[in-house]
């Protein structure tokens, strides 16, 4: 995919480990061991797929055998039972909205703070946002559920807003560290050319933040798509339920109908899994960048 156009700030040097001139031979024992261990990842996935394809009477035993007869209707049943298109659309809408808004706003907030840390107000804001990292969600989930209900924000829009706002703490943390590594001369030069603060940010700084924007975008995407607690607390209308929430809501029906349940789980996991398969290298390098800062 897009091999990182990281200017010079990217501290992760993927080449470092590979450049070991002493010994270039492949360690096949280690490779074999890691391949065997990767079965721990593959087995639950394999199990999900085969169970989703079975008829109910094939469920007995350990359940690891391949289906003798494939029942595609499981997917159709799960599709209509859980109103899959509705839930998938909700999840997609929330995820896309949260990712786009988070990147656009959190980077801007972090920029203003990172470049003004010498001013008392901005320093205070920095610590204000960061300190929220230590506030557990349970303490605010009851009041915020009431609040969003009163404001009419118990909706997709409300969830997007909350992801963007709650993401600030962590995102500011990683954005400011990155922004400090960008030479300030670039901005001063743009100012000399007559650019205002907005112009400097959007035309000079924001494009330079691309690697970090990708990192924050990936992490936000994984969070918003897979989150369960926030939708559970905020959303009351079943029409607005997200994919994970739907799996929970339909548990009582699923208990008597495991093959349809597994088809539903598979459909809930598939979209992000498919995206991941194609964007794998990019996702991993993005997350890695977030770790090294």
């Amino acid at each position: 995919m897009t091999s990182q156009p990281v200017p010079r700030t990217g501290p992760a040097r993927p080449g470092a480990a590979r450049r070991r001139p002493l010994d270039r031979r492949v360690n096949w024992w280690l490779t074999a061991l890691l391949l065997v261990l990767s079965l721990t990842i593959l087995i639950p996935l394999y199990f999900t797929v085969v169970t989703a394809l079975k008829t109910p009477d094939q469920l007995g035993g350990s359940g690891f055998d391949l289906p003798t007869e494939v029942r595609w209707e499981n997917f159709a049943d799960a599709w209509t039972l859980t109103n899959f298109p509705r839930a998938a659309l909700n999840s997609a809408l929330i995820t896309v909205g949260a990712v786009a808004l988070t990147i656009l706003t959190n980077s801007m907030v972090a920029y203003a703070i990172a470049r003004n840390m010498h001013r008392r107000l901005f320093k205070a804001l920095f610590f204000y946002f960061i300190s929220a990292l230590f506030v557990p969600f349970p303490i605010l989930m009851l009041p915020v559920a009431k609040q969003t209900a009163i404001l009419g924000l118990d909706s997709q829009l409300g969830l997007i807003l909350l992801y963007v706002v709650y993401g600030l703490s962590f995102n500011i943390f990683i954005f400011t560290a990155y922004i400090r590594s960008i030479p300030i001369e670039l901005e001063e030069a743009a100012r000399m050319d007559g650019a205002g603060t907005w112009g400097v940010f959007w035309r000079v700084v924001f494009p330079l933040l691309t690697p970090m924007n990708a990192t924050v975008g990936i992490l936000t995407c994984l969070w918003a798509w897979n989150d369960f607690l926030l939708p559970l607390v905020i959303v009351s209308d079943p029409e607005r339920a997200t994919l994970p929430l739907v799996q929970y809501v339909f548990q009582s029906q699923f208990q008597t109908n495991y093959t349809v349940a597994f088809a539903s789980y598979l459909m809930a996991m598939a979209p992000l899994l498919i995206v991941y398969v194609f964007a794998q290298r990019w996702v991993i390098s993005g997350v890695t960048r977030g770790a090294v800062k």
Partner: protein
Amino acid sequence: MAVRTVRGAPEAAAARAAGARRRPPRSGSAIYWMVLPAAGLFFVFHTLPVLQGMFYSLTDSPGYGDWSFVGLSNYAALFTDERIRSAYLFTFQFAIVSTVLVNVFALALAVGLTGRIRFRSALRGLYFVPNVLAVLVIGYVFNYLLTNSLPEIASALGIQRLSRSILADPELAWIGVVVLAVWQAVAFNIIIYIAGLQTIPAELYEAAAIDGSGPWRRFWSVTFPLIGPFFTLNMVLSLKNFLQVFDHIVVMTNGGPGTSTESVSLVIFRGGFQGGEYGYQIANAVVFMVVLVVFALVQFRVLRRDEVTA
């Protein structure tokens, strides 16, 4: 592209600035417009609910209707509540065991994945997959595996202890939750450790190899001390996340059998939303926050000290 145009800018600007007038120092309100709306929203949707919660923790509010002040009696009641006490004990036990296991497995796998192996990027991609899946969804698959498949396999192999579902056993159910938690969290921690391992210059290993130290020795005297900061970060973040465990419980045991696997977050959620204990459970949440902060600070202290001496 944007990078390149910007790169050229400094020289041009410098040349122009050489004899040109000096610009007045930047003032402008733009910088405030960048942060203040966000700070306002953050206050409304984060700080305000926290303050509200702290206020209601001093009342007997059931979450609706009338309430009256009860002073600190909610807090006093917490310390004699058997259900709360067992929730804290369970939560700590679960979080500590999971944190240790996640970090041991993740570090070992990260070392393996940075070794001289084939299929390196495919394997790294594969090991990250659990992080792409929702705990709540893949958790139901684990639930089924532990409830139905594992007992079948165990009894076929003649292992009595595992021939009935561990999730139905009050003594063992927590292990099922740990299995899911570790499986899912190792994925992310591997990536952080790989990032850490890649910051270690290869020359150090060469030097150690020339000194004749074996791989085990090299790990403990070169690798481990140098990834100290990553180890600290992972330990603190894992513990903080696991102490707030919620999804894993809902999906694996729903707190059962009985209340044997109720976590603190689950108790707060159930009592607060369904049990009419709004004020009381918020008091619980306030205590929980204090516990989390103390834990994080202690952990940073202890682990940072290790980093320095190592």
